[in-house]
């Protein structure tokens, strides 16, 4: 009998924990959603219940965002930078990860760890010298500054992630291909890459999300509004003077966050595998 009550109690605690955490973690997004469609008169009245629509919802905030700011421009910039950086990252990280996983024996392991450690060097340390480098290269104020700099943090983690991935592919496959006449590199291109699509896809998504997360570099290297990325454009430019167009601001945040959230969520387990490789056997 005692078992029954204990089971019910455990259930209640379980549901409570989940409820509290979900609310605490997700409510800002619910909030953003509501704010997006709230009329200004509704937003800025302290008596009104903020969780409901006291006045009917409106599209004017979205209208403001899309037509009267450079929001769409920033989204385009971010997408463009994202795609190019993903390409560069793949081009450099995939062969590197393979080489380190297969070809260089003991050194491969050490170099792999060394590369991973560079991921720990933060942008907030490098942004000052890099600002000078970017200026000297004449890339100041353009998105190309970011295209050049971003791979510096997307490559290390991608290499680490892919190394683990390649190691899990049995060597016999490549050996069989080489016995059949392919060179080592040929085996890599024709055998390994086609079966690594999920690992590569993970790297693509992860790189893209890293690009969207950056704040320091974009803030430091780019001043003109037109060339800015969405992560910096929104906080810096959607504040007109002292007035925050909060509703549009919330809309902007929500719209930029959701696709990334969906992408990230699909590939989450892989990312975590990347972080925890070595610690979890």
């Amino acid at each position, binding site marked *: 009998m005692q078992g029954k009550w204990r089971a019910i109690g455990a259930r209640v605690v*379980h549901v409570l924990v989940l409820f509290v955490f*979900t609310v605490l973690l997700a409510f800002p997004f619910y909030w953003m959603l509501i704010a997006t469609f709230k009329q200004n008169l509704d937003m800025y009245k302290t008596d009104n219940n903020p969780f409901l629509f006291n006045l009917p919802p409106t599209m004017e905030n979205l209208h403001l965002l899309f037509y009267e700011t450079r929001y769409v421009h920033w989204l385009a910039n971010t997408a463009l930078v994202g795609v190019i950086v993903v390409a560069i990252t793949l081009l450099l990280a995939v062969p590197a990860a393979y080489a380190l996983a297969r070809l260089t024996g003991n050194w491969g392991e050490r170099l792999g760890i060394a590369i991973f450690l560079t991921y720990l060097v933060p942008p907030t340390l490098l942004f000052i010298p890099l600002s000078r480098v970017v200026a000297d290269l004449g890339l100041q104020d353009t998105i190309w500054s970011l295209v050049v700099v971003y791979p510096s943090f997307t*490559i290390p983690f991608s290499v680490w992630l892919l190394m683990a991935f390649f190691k899990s592919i049995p060597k016999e496959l490549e050996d069989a291909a080489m016995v059949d006449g392919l060179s080592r*590199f040929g085996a890599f291109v024709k055998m390994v890459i086609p079966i690594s699509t999920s690992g590569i896809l993970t790297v693509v998504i992860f790189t893209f999300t890293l690009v969207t997360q950056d*704040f*320091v570099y974009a803030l430091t290297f780019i001043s003109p509004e037109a060339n800015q990325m969405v992560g910096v454009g*929104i*906080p810096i430019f959607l504040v007109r003077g002292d007035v925050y167009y909060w509703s549009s601001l919330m809309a902007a945040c929500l719209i930029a966050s959701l696709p990334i959230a969906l992408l990230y969520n699909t590939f989450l387990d892989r990312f975590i595998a990347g972080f925890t490789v*070595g610690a979890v056997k």
Partner: protein
Amino acid sequence: MAVKHAKIKSAGAAQSPLLGAAMFGPAILYIVLLIGAPFALAVFYAFSDARIGSTELHYVGLENFRSILHSPTFRQAVQNSIVFTVSAIVIVVIASTILSLALEVPFRGRGMIRFLILLPWVAPVSLGTIGWKWILDSIYSVITWVLVYFHFFSPYNTPMWLGEPHLAMASVVCVHCWRLIPFATVVMLAGSSAIPKEIPEAAGIDGAGYFRTLFWIKIPMMLPIINVAVLFSTIFTFTDMTVVYILTDGGPFDSTQTLPNLAFATGIQGSDLAAGAAISLFLVPVLVAVAYFMLRVAHRAEVV
């Protein structure tokens, strides 16, 4: 690149150092050029008088360090960086352990909940923080509204979440925790799901109840993973400037100033590259410590 590699035949050899070097060469080069070189440059700047817009560069020895160490703002920033990070880690580890236990057992709707819980982490830092800036607004804060509704405060004496020093510090720590708990939870889940299910079963048969199994068996087995979560969370909090910049920009009265934010303010906004570089170098000891512990975790795992 493809042409160069195709010329190298391996003839069945497992080690092909030449091909290997050619394949990871470009990546290594990139890293050296864009991380190694700037890092050296940062050190160099710290000992110089570099400024934005000026091409002059002179060696000034420890002058920059001397002046920032004398600055009360700097000392406050160091203290804040440490306090914020430690507070956040403690809260995050406890919260994520509890949450990961709740998410361990499959249940209906778990996927949806996982998606919702992950939002703070996957949304770009700046955008989530802006959301909080509005939630913590002095006048229109949602939290304030709820507290007034339940009569904890009168409508005319509402807390200035970002305007009053202690509240501002708490707010910054909260936002960091809000972002990191999802990340740490998922890492913990990976750790706990790696425990073979027979081990908690054996513990149950041996007579251990839920909490004994948790504290004496599961958590010790998860320590490497907990380590990883702690180390990454440390990095993400200690070296982050975005949250502080957007929420308070170091204010009020430097009470939320942190090292990265100060480095930015000094180096870029204040145009004093040299001082900014010097400030940012103070991140290095913590990074080195974290790197050391990461290596230890990785090494231990190899031995097991």
